[in-house]
């Protein structure tokens, strides 16, 4: 399957954000990696060019590299392309800006990622409990060094 549209989008994003690593994975999928300082800017740009629905936020614990990777999956209902927007934060200082002001739907996804990984989304309206029981303190179940 050809991925003309995906290549064109990747070129466009690359010209706007030379510091981002942009890849076309296959048809319907493009992947962007960027440092956390530019994430707000690139998210805003993505929304402007038609990526209107954020569908998922995932944390990945890269314990060997001492990093958390945070992946936003943002879909375009008009272009039918899914972009994965990746950034990384150090495990001992897991802070990054929240995208909730740009994509309202990441609200619960970020809350869950905070609860499971202890990643702080600065500017998120409410990072309280979502899935874990009340009174659960301090331990983050999806971290690789979690021991019950």
């Amino acid at each position: 399957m050809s991925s003309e549209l995906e290549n064109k989008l990747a070129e466009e994003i690359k010209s706007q954000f030379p510091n981002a690593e942009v890849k076309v994975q296959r048809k319907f999928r493009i992947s962007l990696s960027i440092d956390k300082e530019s994430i707000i800017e690139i998210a805003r740009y993505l929304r402007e060019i038609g990526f209107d629905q954020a569908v998922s936020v995932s944390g990945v614990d890269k314990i060997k590299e001492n990093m958390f990777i945070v992946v936003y999956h943002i879909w375009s209902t008009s272009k039918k392309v899914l972009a994965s927007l990746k950034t990384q934060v150090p495990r001992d200082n897991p802070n990054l800006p929240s995208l909730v002001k740009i994509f309202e739907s990441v609200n619960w996804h970020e809350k869950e990622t905070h609860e499971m990984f202890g990643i702080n989304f600065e500017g998120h309206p409410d990072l309280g409990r979502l899935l874990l029981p009340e009174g659960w303190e301090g331990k983050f179940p999806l971290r690789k060094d979690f021991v019950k």
Partner: protein
Amino acid sequence: MATLHVSFGPQHPGSGPMRLILDLDGDIVVKAVPDIGYVHRNIEKIAEKRSHIVNVPVLERISNIDSFNASLGYIMAVEELMNITPPPRAQFIRVIMSELNRIMSHLYGLAISFESSGLLAPLYWGIADRELFLDLAEMVTGSRITYTYAMLGGVREDLPNGFKDQAIKTFNYFEKRLDEYYDMIFGNKTYQMRLKGVGVLKHDDAIKLGVTGPTLRGSGVNVDVRVDEPYAAYEQIDFKIITEETGDSFARAMVRFNEIRESMSIIRKALDKLPEGPFRERAPFRTPEGEAYSRIESGRGEIGYYVVSDGTDKPYRVKISAPSFRNISALPHMMKGAHMADVPIIIFSTDPWPFDSDR
């Protein structure tokens, strides 16, 4: 005026195993805050400890009412990592099972939503008619609810002899029966009055709040993963995306109702086109290092599986973007200004399944 604080659920028959914290002014909802997590099992962590094959029966339990669709998403992500493509016959069988599951899921969801609007007899119509489709699933897989039928490289078993005849017999009956559903329920003035204009979600809000599936299509957004990003054999089958414009509870029920008919027509077409050949190909145990994001359209909407592999036979990370999680998070928006008595109607108009929102 002081607002009244009401904890709606998790024991309320109209809430499912989740809770809504409602602020009421008189009987008007000022604010609704969903509280989920009552059936949280951390399936994402469980999946990290198990091999890909063992993960199938685990992951289908995020949505046991729609189990084939739930496991298919994971299978597709792992197949993408392994770079294998199932044979054509398997792709068609996947479409058939996927649509059977959609019918079961919609019937169950609609049945409960009828009850929430005061129609008690149609609740049992939906539940009883769903049995016919469970029979079909049992004929194919040996089980009625959770089948572990999707396998890496194809499906577990071939379709049995006589399945086509039995399926067509069921559909012939049920297509007529759907007309009765329409007359008795959707054409019923009382039902319309309870649902129309209740829990409205406008086109742009639906996209912004991230809802999916029939809830999104009920707001006039013309999206469906089966068409936008065809998987299995959906590209080779002609069907239309069902949408409604009004974005209220009635529109969402109508989308589900019409999708049942469309699903039966998809299965008929798939059975006619069903190619001969193997139903499964060999799949390796290990996945190479990498990541994949697969999307499938389940009864409640899109399920996204983000699978990261580190080169072993187990996934390094599985993230499930579940449809009910996304739809429930939009409930506060739909409930603002609604009557307390309409709260169950709005909840069930999105067909929530707390097991997949909590995982």
